[in-house]
């Protein structure tokens, strides 16, 4: 048992120090485009859409990335032009506190009820 633990610890410490997030620009570009919702065909992301609008957005994202803007700055730029709606990933703000926290709250609440009702009430 102990040997396993030691192997495990050594392995982890060897392995993880090399793990860095190293995303290429092309990958980032696709990630951004997939996260932007198309205004013309509204069920699709810009990445999947072939509308004129999607084409323009693709161009501008490329341009902004080459200008050195970060992912978040590009989202902010687009949100400023088209509103929060344009991004598929809803930010954490006063409009979305409930959206993000309610599922987590329910999870812990359900856990608490479960323990109270079933484990301790024998």
């Amino acid at each position, binding site marked *: 048992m102990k040997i396993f633990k030691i192997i495990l610890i050594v392995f982890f410490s060897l392995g993880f120090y090399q793990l860095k997030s190293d995303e290429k620009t092309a990958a980032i570009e696709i990630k951004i485009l997939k996260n932007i919702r198309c205004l013309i065909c509204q069920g699709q992301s810009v990445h999947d859409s072939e509308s004129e609008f999607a084409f323009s957005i693709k*161009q501008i994202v490329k341009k902004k990335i080459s200008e050195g803007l970060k992912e978040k700055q590009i989202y902010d730029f687009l949100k400023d*032009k088209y509103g929060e709606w344009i991004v598929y990933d809803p930010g954490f703000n006063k409009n979305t506190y409930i959206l993000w926290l309610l599922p987590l709250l329910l999870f812990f609440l359900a856990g608490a009820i479960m323990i109270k009702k079933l484990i301790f009430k024998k």
Partner: protein
Amino acid sequence: MKNKFILFALIGFLSFCFVIFYKGLDNIKIYKPKINNKKDIPVFRAKDFNSNIYIDSEKIFEKGNFYLVNIWSSWCVPCRDEHPFLMKLKEHQSVRLIGLNYRDKLNNAKNFINEFGNPYTKILIDSDGTLSVEFGAYGVPETFIINKDKKIIKKFIGPINEKIVEEIKLIIK
């Protein structure tokens, strides 16, 4: 007693959801960006339609003048419908019309202008559509009104018509 309370709470919650969904049915499902009042004009560089020279946005828009920025294209059908109204607006001294030629072929665009007349004091080329994104547009035609303080104060999505012309006249008075 406790059960009854839970039941009433649940039914209350259900009714709340019912009302929300009922109201939600009437809402328009297609999203249109809100018109945020008083936005600054974006800073950009664009090619001039006639001279083919790059100009900075600061040189185009001057303080103390109303501007109307119109995004158009020769392949866009509604642009043909709104063209006569733009020609009418041209006669007003208090507003200058700037055209933004959106993803077009230069020849087609020139033919369009020659055929229907040129309402614009200046036309800029937006060959890849990025310029119109800077303005916050997402289709053709779209029209923006810029006030004397160089702020975008109004935006019209779709072709201009009689009613909108009247509205614009009121603004620029």
